[in-house]
């Protein structure tokens, strides 16, 4: 059974002029204990999709459709129940841990706070548990580290602390929004290993958001590729990399250098603003496969094979060739 089921999600921002639709008709499912990778370039709607699941959209945004989590629709759930889910049943980590940590409180106190707010634990027990959590995220000398403040730690250590806070109450869903983007590759590899171990030990599902397809290739079991607020391709990880069937996915893959001498095939043009998207297929103006039919109506998701879908009317002809 899916843990999370997003159906027809639309997210719209109010503005002084016309409202801007930043996410449109998004469907996705995350199974228990799987890592679902969500990829796409900046501005395509990854973060606000995550925030809408967490119930943390900014006040000028509104969401419609449905987000079923363990059978409950998060979009209609009352505020108080949502607040209780957050941090306990589902939690989120971000690219920059410093923005979510309080600079004037110790690491230990902030961890303990999560525990006694959600788990009805005494402050004393919570402080002991904090040390254990730091150990679980493999922070060296946790007994000393609990007494430190965020600025005394490196970026990698702070991200470990964020992960400890996020998994403190044993959530079934962890949303990780570019958690390693600000880190060096060496530290990134350590954090990815940690996330993967925690997932396995705790049977958590993970929504892993990144712009780095390499991370997806190595860590996710299923992948959604987003472009301009739409999911354009959805498949098992091996299928995305072995048989990509949306021209945008092919464009992204062709943009990654793969050894000397190979031809780089960048996508022409620029990542569009949500305000000036083409009428039909949103990728039409950058797409080498585009025909006139692409301009008239927005394609829906075509089934390529079991579990593999692409939002392209020509998906049958679209192939990667190296």
């Amino acid at each position, binding site marked *: 059974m899916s843990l999370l089921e997003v159906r027809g999600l639309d997210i719209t921002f109010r503005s002084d002029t016309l409202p801007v639709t930043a996410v449109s008709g998004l469907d996705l499912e995350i199974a228990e204990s799987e890592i679902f990778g969500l990829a796409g*370039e900046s501005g395509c709607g990854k973060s606000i999709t995550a925030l809408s699941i967490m119930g943390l959209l900014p006040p000028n945004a509104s969401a419609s459709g449905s987000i079923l989590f363990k059978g409950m629709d998060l979009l209609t759930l009352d505020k108080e129940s949502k607040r209780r889910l957050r941090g306990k049943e589902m939690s989120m980590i971000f690219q920059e841990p410093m923005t979510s940590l309080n600079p004037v409180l110790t690491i230990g106190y902030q961890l303990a706070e999560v525990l006694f707010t959600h788990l009805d634990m005494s402050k004393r027990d919570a402080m002991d548990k904090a040390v254990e959590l730091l150990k679980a995220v493999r922070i060296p000398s946790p007994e000393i580290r609990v007494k430190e403040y965020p600025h005394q730690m490196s970026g990698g250590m702070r991200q470990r602390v964020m992960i400890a806070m996020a998994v403190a109450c044993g959530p079934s869903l962890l949303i990780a929004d570019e958690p390693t983007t600000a880190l060096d590759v060496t530290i990134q590899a350590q954090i990815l290993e940690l996330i993967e171990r925690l997932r396995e030990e705790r049977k958590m599902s993970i929504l892993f958001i990144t712009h780095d397809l390499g991370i997806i290739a190595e860590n996710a079991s299923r992948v959604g590729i987003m472009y301009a607020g739409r999911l354009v391709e959805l498949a098992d990880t091996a299928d995305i990399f072995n048989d990509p069937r949306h021209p945008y996915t092919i464009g992204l893959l062709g943009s990654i250098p793969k050894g000397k001498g190979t031809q780089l095939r960048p996508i022409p043009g620029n990542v569009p603003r949500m305000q000036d998207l083409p009428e039909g297929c949103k990728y039409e103006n950058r797409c080498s496969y585009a025909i006139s039919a692409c301009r008239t109506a927005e394609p829906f998701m075509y089934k390529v094979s079991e579990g593999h879908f692409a939002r392209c009317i020509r998906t049958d002809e679209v192939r990667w060739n190296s």
Partner: protein
Amino acid sequence: MELLRVEALKKYFFSGKGFSGPDKVLKAVDGVDFALEKDSVLALVGESGCGKSTLARLVLRLTTPTGGRVFFKGQDVFAMGREELKSFRKSAQIVFQDPFASLNPRRTVYDTISEPLIIHKIGKRQDHKDVVAEILRTVGMGPEVMTRYPHEFSGGQRQRICIARALAVSPEIIVADEPLSALDVSIQAQIINLLMELKKSTGISFLFISHDLRVVHYLSDMVGVMYLGRIVEHAKADDLFARPFHPYTEMLLASAPKISVGDMKKPEGIRVASAGGEAPSPFNIPSGCPFHPRCPKRFGPCDRVVPKLRESEGRLVSCHLWHNPE
């Protein structure tokens, strides 16, 4: 021909003049030697804080060294007089990571690109329009953009404008400090192709700083791997990526996520991070081999004897595994 030579270059920052104890010394660049041949790309890689940007600034004489020398075509850059320095400033250009911060928001594209022409008295004023149009063409932009302002462009287009500004004075070397980091993947690929074309068509040499190993392999001829202010391995890009010699290079390469299209295999189980620990503070560089606390291959002499950067099978490595520590 050798374009650039760096000898025993050092940059220390002194800080923390406290009531107790001596000054603390941060060794940002701690004895670097390398040479850059004409018509080639030398990449510098290494974790953040290892001194790449400081080294770039030293090479361009944007900061003064604590020790060591930089030679541009045989001339000591820090001993140059006014005229020589002016000509050096023309020959050596820089492109930064952030194309947003490095363009003046109140100047049009034409103003931005023609400014170096005016400063260096290149060509006649009335010809500048044509010159600028030609440079814009080289970076893949049309002449119609000349009257527009930076905010009207996307990140990739702004980086093209920065590159155009660097090209305006026909430099011999461009130092590019993480020029792709702020850009989206699809836009990065456009800029990589542009840099490759420039390399082929102009003979400009590049000192290319990047943390993206895939890009480095693709773009560079030589690679210098830096750790805590020193170069620990210096080799042909192909050699280095085929088989890293230094354990730190090995760790870096193993940490980068692999990607292959068409023949991807499902990874089995948890990929154990090959990288142990984090780089120590440059205030406190470990004894012996600076890498020894994180090195999975350390042995007897590693925590006592500093390895020297020495030749081994056609490349330079500083590791006791490759040279007897005598």
